[in-house]
């Protein structure tokens, strides 16, 4: 048996063990009160879950072994990996495919399951029954077993031969193994893609815990004491999922070129929706713990969160999105299986909820405006409405599929301008979240009446109005875009949310009460909202086409022309900057800066190697000498663009990168970003002359010259300095009797720059050959065509091509750092809350604050 068979066997064992474990735990809990589970059934369930976990880890080791060992006889390795991939990106290969990402998710469930077996005590049997039931479905997705004509799951251990049996090569050679894989999607070759997916799937996995507790509570009739553990796990899940989402946003900002961090793509929305509902659920749970109200809401939202995670899985993995998303997974034909998974849990959990609904305690207390609970409750409702809006729009492809199922053809499409559509509604979600978080936080820590409320609210409210007016005035003075009403609303409420939470935090610290995780994360959210408003609402295109040169004047007033052409070494003025594109660069491992392509002579037949044409040094240190062979990463070309601030004279350099990739189709451009404290300058190339296309050279013009003669080329002149025996440096592969002569020509380019050109004339095995040399900067190619030794005359052929250029888009993103720092604070706030709730499990938040102290202060 080889590694793939072992892996496949592991999947089958994991599946069977999950079935046994689910059964064992179910029987242990069935018909018995909480904490009185049947010991022998529970032992079976536990043992089976441990077997399941060990098998899953074995499967992961096997799959990683296949990728790491470049075993391209396996389809998964061939389609997701390649020989030149560094190890840390092999980890990303692991979860690039559907099967691997399922495995990752399963793996987190296993770890959390182990934790619960150790610590859940009386909850173990019913909670783990839910866990094992989920694992049963998830492992079935990667089972890869045929039941009659029905395919159950898609195995990652499938061989190339099994996946593509019709390849002609297998007729000639049944044992054919590809030499190299097709590689990891280059957009995923980014360190965020090593850490973002595991974080996100951990967040997904964590939503299962509160769900399992809720189901266990409903099942066993323990309708209140599941809240305690559920809060802690929801806090962990909410924090990790939130940070995971923002990691994805940061990756998109850094790697993709749509000019932002959030594109409202269905795949992004599919994670955003459950996160909003999870946060709403968390607030409802806290309401029950503090005010003995909102338990039905808490139950519904905890259940809804998990069901929405399943719905997200269905959306992104079943192929239902089709053309609607640029980055959903490939369709593995699992849609039926995914739908059964989704429906099973919808029916099961909603059934349980309905069965127990009447018994779930409700509060008799009528909430007034002075109760923070009321505002928290409204806040949770607003979050749900926000989630609902995204859900309704994102599901448009599902409606088409649904009515199509009944034979009706629907031509409904996602909104043409998705960003405008979502922004116009989600902006108000932000307004209310900021406002309500401020109000609720101010009321939360004290008993309220008219007097205390006006005392607590006055300072933040006045500061908010002052701050907002100041910003509005500043924008009016300096901005080219006036603030619209929704923007003013978001700014004002964002500031209020920030200041209210900060003032509460200061008071709490002064009173010597513990730090409030809630206040910290709400500060983070408020900062994020202000950061989004500034960076997205006031993102400014620097690269306006101001040349006045337009192809057509039709519609010219209403359209933005956001891309400019930069000729190599020609400075162009854009806004306050002067931009110069100065050439193409490569990444050379071991050298801390990018290396000019003109310094690198390509090696025939190995694009991963090059020969240095001159010294490669950074600062004082020389990394390679002329003639050294070095390693390069040929995938990415970096376009060096120099920015000069025309006012201050300060300069900086950006290296936006592009990858010509046949398989992904064309040019993949990634931006480079210059960070300033108050804004980012973000720029990417939108088009370059196709690097895979042969350049169009003019017919060679011949010059017959002697040494030290001058050649007058079109725009430049050159001096033929010398002719010498060529060294073997340029990878000529010369044998003993071969002759090679290289000319040394100095071309005087723009701004006094000089270029040494070395065309080679060689006689190899009695055959005459010529190796041209090129000055990319000038679009010039020179060959040494002939040598007349009697006369001392040399014939050079000079041809020209269009000068190199890039088409560039550049923009300014004001105050984007508020978004990222807000994200960190939000995560930190979640962390503080988790730690605090872990330390004092019975902490009743409000009652701990000495009310008298507050009174005294007010008086």
């Amino acid at each position, binding site marked *: 048996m080889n590694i793939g068979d072992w892996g496949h066997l592991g999947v089958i064992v994991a599946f069977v063990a999950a079935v046994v474990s689910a059964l064992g735990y179910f029987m242990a809990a069935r018909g018995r009160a909480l904490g009185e589970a049947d010991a022998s059934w529970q032992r079976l369930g536990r043992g089976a879950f441990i077997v399941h976990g060990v098998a899953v880890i074995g499967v992961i080791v096997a799959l990683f072994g296949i990728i790491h060992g470049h075993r391209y006889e396996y389809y998964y390795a*061939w*389609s997701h990996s390649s020989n030149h991939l560094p190890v840390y990106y092999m980890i990303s290969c692991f979860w690039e495919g559907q099967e691997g990402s399922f495995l990752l998710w399963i793996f987190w469930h296993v770890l959390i399951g182990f934790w619960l077996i150790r610590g859940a005590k009386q909850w173990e049997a019913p909670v783990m029954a839910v866990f094992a039931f989920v694992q049963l479905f998830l492992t079935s997705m990667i089972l890869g077993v045929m039941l009659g004509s029905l395919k159950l799951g898609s195995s990652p251990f499938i061989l*190339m031969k099994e996946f*593509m049996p019709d*390849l*002609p*090569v297998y007729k*000639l*050679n049944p044992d*054919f193994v*590809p*030499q*190299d894989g*097709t590689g990891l999607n280059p957009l995923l070759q980014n360190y965020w893609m090593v850490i973002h997916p595991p974080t996100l799937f951990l967040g997904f996995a964590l939503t299962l815990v509160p769900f399992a507790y809720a189901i266990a509570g409903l099942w066993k009739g323990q309708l209140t004491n599941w809240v305690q553990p559920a809060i802690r796990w929801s806090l962990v899940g909410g924090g990790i999922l939130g940070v995971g989402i923002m990691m994805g946003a940061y990756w998109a900002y850094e790697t993709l070129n749509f000019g932002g961090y959030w594109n409202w793509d269905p795949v992004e929305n599919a994670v955003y929706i459950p996160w909003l509902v999870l946060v709403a659920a968390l607030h409802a749970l806290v309401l029950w713990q503090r005010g003995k109200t909102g338990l039905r809401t808490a139950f519904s939202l905890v259940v809804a969160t998990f069901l929405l995670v399943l719905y997200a899985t269905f959306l992104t993995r079943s192929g239902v999105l089709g*053309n609607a998303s*640029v980055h959903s997974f*490939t369709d593995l034909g699992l849609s039926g299986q995914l739908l059964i998974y989704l429906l099973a849990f919808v029916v099961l959990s909603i059934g349980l909820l309905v069965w127990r609904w009447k018994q779930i305690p409700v509060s008799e207390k*009528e909430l007034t405006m002075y109760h923070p609970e*009321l505002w928290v409750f*409204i806040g949770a*409702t607003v979050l749900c*409405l926000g989630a*609902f*809006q995204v859900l*309704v*729009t994102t599901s448009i492809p599902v409606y088409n599929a649904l009515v199509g199922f009944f034979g009706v053809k629907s*031509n*409904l*499409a*996602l*909104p*043409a*301008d998705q960003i405008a*559509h979502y922004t*116009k*509604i989600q902006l108000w979600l932000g307004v209310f979240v900021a406002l309500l978080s401020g109000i609720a936080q101010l009321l939360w820590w004290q008993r309220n009446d008219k007097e205390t409320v006006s005392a607590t609210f006055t300072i933040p409210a006045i500061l908010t109005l002052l701050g907002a007016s100041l910003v509005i005035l500043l924008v009016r003075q300096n901005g080219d875009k006036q603030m619209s009403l929704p923007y003013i609303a978001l700014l004002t409420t964002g500031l209020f949310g920030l200041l209210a939470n900060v003032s509460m935090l200061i008071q709490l610290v002064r009173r010597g009460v513990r730090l409030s995780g809630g206040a910290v994360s709400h500060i983070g959210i408020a900062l994020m909202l202000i950061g989004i408003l500034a960076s997205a609402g006031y993102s400014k295109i620097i690269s306006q*086409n101001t040349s006045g*040169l*337009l*192809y*057509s004047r*039709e*519609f010219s007033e209403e*359209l*933005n*022309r*956001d*891309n400019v*052409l930069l000729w190599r070494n020609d400075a162009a003025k854009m806004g306050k900057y002067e931009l110069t594109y100065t050439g193409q660069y490569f990444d050379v491992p071991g050298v801390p800066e990018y290396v000019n392509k003109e310094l690198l002579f390509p090696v025939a037949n190995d694009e991963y190697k090059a020969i240095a044409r001159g010294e490669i040094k950074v600062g004082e240190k020389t990394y390679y000498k002329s003639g050294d062979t070095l390693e390069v990463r040929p995938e990415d070309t970096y376009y060096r663009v120099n920015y000069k601030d025309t006012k201050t004279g300060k300069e900086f350099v950006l290296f936006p990168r592009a990858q010509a990739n046949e*398989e*992904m*189709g*064309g*040019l993949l451009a990634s931006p480079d970003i210059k960070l300033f404290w108050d804004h980012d300058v973000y720029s990417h190339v*939108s*088009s370059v002359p*196709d690097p895979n296309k042969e350049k169009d050279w003019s017919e060679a013009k011949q010059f017959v010259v002697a040494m030290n003669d001058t050649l007058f080329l079109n725009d430049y002149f050159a001096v033929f300095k010398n002719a010498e025996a060529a060294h073997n440096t340029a990878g000529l592969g010369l044998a003993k009797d071969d002759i090679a002569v290289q000319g040394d020509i100095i071309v005087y380019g723009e701004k006094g720059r000089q270029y040494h050109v070395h065309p080679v004339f060689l006689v190899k095995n009695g055959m005459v050959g010529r190796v041209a040399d090129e000055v990319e900067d000038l679009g010039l190619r020179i060959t040494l065509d002939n040598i007349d030794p009697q006369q001392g005359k040399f014939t050079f052929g000079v041809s020209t091509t*269009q000068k190199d*250029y890039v*088409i560039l888009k550049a923009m300014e993103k004001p105050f984007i750092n508020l978004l990222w720092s807000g994200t960190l604070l939000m995560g930190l706030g979640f962390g503080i809350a988790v730690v605090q709730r872990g330390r004092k499990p019975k902490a009743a938040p409000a009652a701990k604050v000495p009310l008298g102290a507050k009174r005294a202060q007010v008086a």
Partner: protein
Amino acid sequence: MKKTHLLALVVIAIAISVVMATASDASVYVSFGEAKELAADGDLRKVHVVGRLPHDAQKNIVGMQYNPTVDPNYFTFMLVDTNKVQQQVVYFNPKPQDFEKSEQVVITGNMRNNVFVADKILLKCPSKYVEKDVKGATAAR
């Protein structure tokens, strides 16, 4: 009426308006003929059109023009929709680099003065997963 009931009514009202806002913003897949009719009626709503690029006998794409050295923000091409109607499309952005290879093109935008002004182009390229050729597979080892 209790406050919770009031809140519930407000929530339902907002939910309904959200659905209506989505319905009014949702776009549709149409043919060029329908897009022209919409524009003639003064409806400037942006629509989706699915089509293919016309090729001549030598398999070159017909009617495509992009000249970055003149205007990097002007790209025009012809598109044949599912009803075999050909229409000129203008895109005020650089040409997507993989444009020529795409099997199917989805554009969003609307008809204006007899040209379709696209603001988004979605390309469907030959599946990179299944039809990808295996390197070295043609050479028997």
